[in-house]
C-alpha cells in the first residue's frame, strides 16, 4: 500500500536511503544537498538503519570512502551538489572504471563563480562523460522513485556502474509537495540484497583493483566500459517495468508529453518540465500542436529512441540549464542535434540556455520559446540558433 505523504525532495531521498538500508553512507555537507545526509545521520543515530555513517572531511573523501566500501563488497551511497561534485571529480572516474555501483543523489546547483547556491545543471552536466549513469527527476516523487531504481540498475550484473539521481536544488530538494512512498518491505524486496560478482574481501577469489594499465591494456578497458554503458539501456527499461508492477508509476528513458502529433516541441530536463507542461496544455486548448520531451536517462544517451520521438516535429527547442561556454550550444542541444544528424531531416532545432544560477523560469518564459517555434514553422526560417531565455542583455 502506498503511503500518502508531503515531503521535500531531500526528505524523500533520505527516506529512500533509510528503506534501502545500505552498508555505508559517507557524505560531506554542501547546500542544497546537506539535508540528505543530515536526515540520514539521524536515522543512523536512532538505530533505524544498520548503516555505517561516515562523516568525512571533504567530498573527495566522501567518494573515496564509497569507493572503498563498494570495492570491499558493500552497498554505499552519498549525496552532493555543485562544488562538492567538482571536488569528487577524479574519484568519479575511479568509481565508474572500477565498475562500482555506488548510488548518489546529485542535487543540482550552479558551479561557482560567481558563488551561487541555487539551481542549474552545470555541476552534473560537467560529469556527463565520467562513466556514471545519469538519471534526472522532475519532482520529489521522481527523485524518490529514481533513487530506488538506481540501486537496481547500477547493481545489475550486466551493468555494475555507479548511478546519479539528479534533481533541482531548492526547487525540488526543498519544496514540500505530495508524494506516494512505498512500504519499507516493498523497497527492500525491490532492491534486493547486493551480491557483487567480485570484491576485494572475497578470499576464495583474490583480485586487485586499480592496477596500472599502460598502452597495452588501457584502451581495451575503456572500450569495454563504453560498451557496458550502451547496453545498460535494456536494464534501465526492465527495472522501470518491474517498478511499474509494484507502484503503478511508469518510467521510460524519457517522458513524451503530448508528442503523438506534435509539430513544435521542447526538449528539457528536470523541474522546469512541469512548468512547461502547463504551457503545452494551454497551447493545446488553443489548437496548437505542442509537445514536450523530458529527458530521464541522459547517460547513456538514448540516441535512436530520442530521434524517433522527435522525427515528426517541424521545429524543436532544446533547453539547457547549463552553458558549455563554446559559442555552439549547451550540452543537451549538442547531444540532441548530433543524434539527429544523418538520421532525420527537416526538423529545425534551436537552443535556449535558461535558469542559470537559480533564475526563476515562469510560464511566460516558456511561452516565449513556443512562440518562437511557431514563428519558425510559419516562416520556415530560424533567426537565431543559440538563444538565452530570461536574461538581461546589453
Amino acid at each position, binding site marked *: 500500500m502506498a503511503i500518502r505523504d*508531503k515531503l521535500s525532495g531531500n526528505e524523500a531521498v533520505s527516506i529512500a536511503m533509510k528503506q534501502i538500508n545500505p552498508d555505508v553512507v559517507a557524505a560531506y555537507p554542501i547546500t542544497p544537498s546537506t539535508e540528505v545526509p543530515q536526515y540520514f545521520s539521524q536515522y543512523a543515530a536512532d538505530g533505524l538503519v544498520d548503516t555505517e555513517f561516515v562523516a568525512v572531511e571533504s567530498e573527495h573523501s566522501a567518494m573515496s570512502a564509497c569507493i572503498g566500501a563498494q570495492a570491499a563488497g558493500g552497498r554505499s551511497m552519498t549525496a552532493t551538489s555543485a562544488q562538492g561534485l567538482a571536488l569528487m571529480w577524479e574519484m568519479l572516474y575511479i568509481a565508474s572504471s572500477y565498475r562500482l555501483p555506488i548510488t548518489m543523489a546529485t542535487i543540482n546547483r550552479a558551479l561557482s563563480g560567481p558563488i551561487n*547556491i541555487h539551481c542549474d545543471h552545470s555541476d552534473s552536466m560537467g560529469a556527463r562523460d565520467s562513466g556514471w549513469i545519469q538519471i534526472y527527476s522532475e519532482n520529489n516523487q521522481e527523485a524518490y522513485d529514481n533513487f530506488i531504481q538506481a540501486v537496481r540498475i547500477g547493481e545489475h550484473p550486466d551493468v555494475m556502474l555507479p548511478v546519479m539521481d539528479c534533481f533541482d536544488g*531548492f526547487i525540488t530538494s526543498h519544496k*514540500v*509537495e505530495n508524494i506516494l512512498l512505498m512500504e519499507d518491505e516493498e523497497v527492500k524486496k525491490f532492491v534486493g540484497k547486493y551480491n557483487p560478482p567480485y570484491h576485494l574481501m572475497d578470499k576464495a577469489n583474490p583480485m586487485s583493483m586499480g592496477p596500472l594499465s599502460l598502452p597495452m591494456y588501457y584502451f581495451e578497458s575503456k572500450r569495454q566500459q563504453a560498451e557496458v554503458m550502451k547496453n545498460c539501456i535494456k536494464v534501465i527499461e526492465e527495472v522501470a517495468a518491474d517498478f511499474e508492477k509494484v507502484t503503478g508509476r511508469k518510467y521510460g528513458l524519457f517522458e513524451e508529453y503530448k508528442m503523438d502529433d506534435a509539430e513544435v516541441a521542447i526538449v528539457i530536463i528536470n523541474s522546469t518540465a512541469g512548468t512547461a507542461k502547463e504551457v503545452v*496544455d494551454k497551447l493545446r486548448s488553443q489548437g496548437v500542436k505542442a509537445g514536450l520531451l523530458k529527458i530521464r536517462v541522459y547517460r547513456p544517451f538514448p540516441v535512436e529512441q530520442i530521434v524517433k520521438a522527435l522525427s515528426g516535429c517541424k521545429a524543436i527547442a532544446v533547453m539547457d540549464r547549463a552553458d558549455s561556454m563554446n559559442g555552439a550550444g549547451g550540452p543537451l542541444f549538442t547531444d540532441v542535434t548530433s543524434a539527429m544528424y544523418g538520421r532525420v531531416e527537416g526538423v529545425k532545432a534551436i537552443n535556449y540556455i535558461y535558469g542559470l544560477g537559480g533564475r526563476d523560469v*515562469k*510560464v511566460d518564459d516558456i511561452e516565449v520559446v513556443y512562440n518562437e517555434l511557431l514563428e519558425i514553422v510559419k516562416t520556415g526560417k530560424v533567426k537565431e540558433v543559440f538563444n538565452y531565455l530570461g536574461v538581461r542583455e546589453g
Partner: protein
Amino acid sequence: MSKVVEVRWHGRGGQGAKTASELLAAAAFNTGKYVQGFPEYGPERMGAPIAAFTRISDEQIRIHSNIYEPNFVVVIDETLLDCVNVTAGLKEDGAIIVNTSKTPDEIKPSLEGYKGKVCTIDARTIAEECIGRNIPNTPMLAAIIKVSGVMSDDEFFNDMEDSLKKKFANKPQVIDGNMKAIKRAVSEVNGI
C-alpha cells in the same frame, strides 16, 4: 491550466513565514489536497524581508516557478509595507491580510492602490495573550484559512489539534495556547 489557489507570504527572516507556508500546505494536504510549500531562498539573514509560497489544488501541481499572481497575500510584519511592494501581481478578486492593530481603512493608503479585499488582524496581541510570546504565524495561518475558505473552521481546528498533539506531546500548555490563539484569530479578522 488546473485551478490552483496561490498564497504569497511576506515576513522577515526568523518570523516563521517559511514555516507558515508549509503549515498551510500541511493543513490543506490533510484535507486531501495537492500542495506545495516553499520559500524564496535568499541570503537568509534574521530580519531581512523574505517571501514564501503555498499552492493548493485538487489536482497534481506541476508548475515549479515562484508565485507572481497570487490569489492571497499574507503580511506577517506590517513594517514591510514601507519597503516591499506586497500587492505586486495580487489578483483583485483575491485579498491581502496584514498583521496590524490598525483597521483595513487605515492600512489601505500603504497598499499601492490595491482594489481588492483588505483584511487586518492583530496577530501580535493574540499571540502574546494566548501563547505568551509574539509568535504571529499560527494566528496568521488561521486568518488566511478564514479569508481564503480553503477549508472549514472545524476541519482546520481538528487538524491543528492533531498536529500540535503530535508535535508537543510533552508540552500540553503549548497546545492549549496555540488552539486558543487560532480560535480567537478566526473571529478577529477585520474586513472579511
